[in-house]
């Protein structure tokens, strides 16, 4: 039994790894040293700081009222209903922002990694429909029980039966009613009449003496025993999620079965346009490019870029639009702006064209598509207010080399387009974070903040940039230089220290070592003058420094390099002695 328990507890290594990831992801936007990220962040901070009013509210903001079971046919629930939404790790702030904008929330929403817990003041069909239109949520659960504390022991887990959980059995039947209402109205999954067929998915995070399978088993046991629902692992109507997060135990029923919620929202807006053209339910599927942007992240980009608060008549540009997800997401939500989308490839523009045609008319009329090259944007300086784009990461599209040349050129053309009369904001999504940071340093942009998002396990950065107006005049020549025929990959310059020695070196005809650039020359001088070892050392130091900036060699490589350099030095010394001899022969 002991060994079994030992095996079941998570290894400390995995645990620390998880913890490490979390702290890494969250430092960026909880760091007080960073500049403020604008109204969205301020709004979230405000909400988090708001006091909790009622004593019934638990630490997660879940609320439990006495009149738990108040469901009738019209789905008019007057008491507070708890929900639990999941999203991409890193954009929880966005979910909270969207919720507070669209709903009347009871209390303050709380969040952990990738999950947001919130309560609504009452529920009707309209609210449910609005919930299904959430743009930033991947999956939505209606909570059955929320504020239960659990210790690490198996015995404690065994106590977790539905009747023993806060809210009791009534909370479960109410959650079932809400799920039925959702299925009948929005669809997704079966209608589930009578006793529902269900399965439980258990998830566990932290150090416990039980596994996630145990969590699922105990929950399923309780449901079968007390609610008489029918367990079925393959042909199920309800998916119950049981989750243990350190000392918290939460259960909920998944509402959107199959498709992510942001996808449901996008498809719903397309179906709407179909109805307007008298072709109800015949809206074609969205056309996706090779690396499509997920709609919730697109929404995150748009909101972080300040499109939500942009004044009427702002011009938003996505210069690398792909299949046009940014426009699709933003145009129906923020119709006060005009959207200009562009890309190089004919194929993806065809997709963007078809996707735009699927949007409701009022949104589609806000988007124009142009074919252009991002390194030479054909835009009048100052015409653009906000640039929102998903850059190629150099993984699936392009490689590290193409990204290295593309980013500086793209940033230069963005800076031109965002000249003074514009709102001057850019939000870029990239997986090649270092490359973007380097390019930003060399460009006229200043980084205002970065938000880290975990996208399918890849850590990508949402960078908010502004063109620095003071530097704009002086930078423009530099900006233009990037656009010139020379790629930005400049070979290392000869350091000024070693240059005088090269200049001092007398040009005595076809010298043996004159064709080799720096070191041989210094060597000649070295052998002749005797004392100038420092300059050569300086040159080499500089060279190695530049190399280390580019890529740090491994220990083995460094050893090999040292051996090779020693060999070369010996060779050069021999050569220089020979040259010295020749010189001395010439001199008399």
């Amino acid at each position, binding site marked *: 039994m002991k060994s079994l328990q030992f095996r079941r507890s998570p290894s400390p290594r995995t645990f620390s790894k998880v913890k490490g990831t979390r702290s890494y992801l969250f430092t960026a936007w909880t760091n007080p040293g960073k500049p403020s990220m604008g109204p969205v962040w301020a709004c979230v901070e405000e909400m988090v700081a708001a006091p909790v009013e009622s004593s019934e509210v638990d630490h997660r903001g879940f609320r439990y009222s006495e009149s738990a079971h108040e469901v009738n046919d019209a789905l008019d629930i007057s008491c507070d209903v708890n929900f639990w939404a999941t999203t991409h790790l890193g954009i929880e702030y966005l979910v909270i922002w969207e919720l507070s904008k669209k709903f009347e929330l009871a209390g303050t929403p709380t969040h952990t990694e990738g999950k947001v817990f919130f309560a609504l003041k009452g529920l009707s069909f309209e609210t449910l429909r609005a919930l299904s239109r959430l743009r930033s949520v991947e999956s939505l659960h209606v909570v059955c029980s929320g504020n239960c504390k659990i210790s690490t022991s198996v015995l404690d887990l065994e106590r977790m039966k539905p009747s023993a959980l806060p809210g009791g059995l009534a909370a479960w039947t109410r959650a079932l009613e809400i799920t039925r209402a959702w299925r009948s109205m929005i669809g997704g999954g079966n209608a589930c009449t009578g006793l529902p067929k269900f399965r439980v998915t258990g998830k566990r995070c932290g150090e416990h003496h039980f596994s996630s399978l145990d969590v699922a088993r105990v929950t399923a046991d309780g449901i079968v025993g007390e609610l008489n629902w029918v367990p079925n692992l393959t042909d199920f109507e309800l998916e119950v999620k049981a989750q243990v997060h350190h000392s918290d135990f939460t259960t909920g029923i998944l509402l959107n079965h199959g498709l992510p919620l942001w996808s449901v929202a996008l498809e719903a807006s397309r179906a709407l346009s179909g109805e307007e053209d008298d072709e109800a339910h015949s809206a074609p599927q969205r056309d996706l490019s090779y690396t499509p942007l997920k709609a919730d992240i697109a929404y995150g980009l748009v909101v972080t870029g300040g499109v939500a608060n942009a004044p009427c*008549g*702002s011009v938003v540009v996505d210069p690398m639009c792909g299949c046009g997800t940014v426009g699709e997401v933003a145009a129906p939500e923020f119709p006060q702006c005009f959207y200009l989308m562009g890309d190089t490839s004919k194929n993806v523009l065809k997709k963007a064209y078809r996707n735009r045609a699927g949007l409701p008319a009022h949104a589609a009329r806000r988007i*124009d598509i*142009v074919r252009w090259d991002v390194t030479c944007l054909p835009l009048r300086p100052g015409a653009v207010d906000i640039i929102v784009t998903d850059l190629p990461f150099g993984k699936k599209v392009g490689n590290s080399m193409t990204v290295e040349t593309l980013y500086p050129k793209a940033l230069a053309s963005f800076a031109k387009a965002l000249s003074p009369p514009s709102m001057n904001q850019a939000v870029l999504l990239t997986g090649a974070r270092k490359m973007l940071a380097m390019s930003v340093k060399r460009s006229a942009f200043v980084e205002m903040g970065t938000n880290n998002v975990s996208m399918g396990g890849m850590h990508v950065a949402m960078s908010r940039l502004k063109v620095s107006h003071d530097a704009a005049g002086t930078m423009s020549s530099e900006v233009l230089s990037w656009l010139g025929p020379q790629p930005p990959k400049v070979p290392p310059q000869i350091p000024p220290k070693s240059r005088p020695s090269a200049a001092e070196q007398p040009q005595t005809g076809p010298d043996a070592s004159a064709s080799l650039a720096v070191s041989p020359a210094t060597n000649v001088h070295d052998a002749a003058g005797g004392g100038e070892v420092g300059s050569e050392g300086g040159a080499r130091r500089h060279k190695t420094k530049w190399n280390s900036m580019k890529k740090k060699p491994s220990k083995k490589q460094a050893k090999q390099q040292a051996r090779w350099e020693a060999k070369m030095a010996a060779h050069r010394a021999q050569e220089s002695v020979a040259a010295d001899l020749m010189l001395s022969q010439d001199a008399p």
Partner: protein
Amino acid sequence: MRLLTHNMLANNAKGVTKGFPLGLEVTAVETKEAEFNPDFLKKMVPKLEWGAFCEAAAVIGVTGFPTAVTPDLFEDEAFLKKFHNALLEVHVEEGVLICPESGRRFAINKGIPNMLLNEDEC
């Protein structure tokens, strides 16, 4: 492509110093009704190059715009409607954009202008 987009496009090819406004040749035009929003139009006026807009509007057949916009014109419903129609409702489906300096022609197909440059041009 609408005139709003036309007003933002310029030829930024290498060696071209004044690639704006692009000349317009139209072979097919389509009018799609768009939501009338006076506030949007008012905010759009200072962002536009008015001269370039008037020239382009004349090409698509909407004439009679004043040479400069004064605040009292925003009260004029007829002006706003005409402005709205020319700026947002008329789509140039087929045509050509022409650079004023180099004479480079950019084709418009299905309402999408192809602003790609050859390798030696950018």
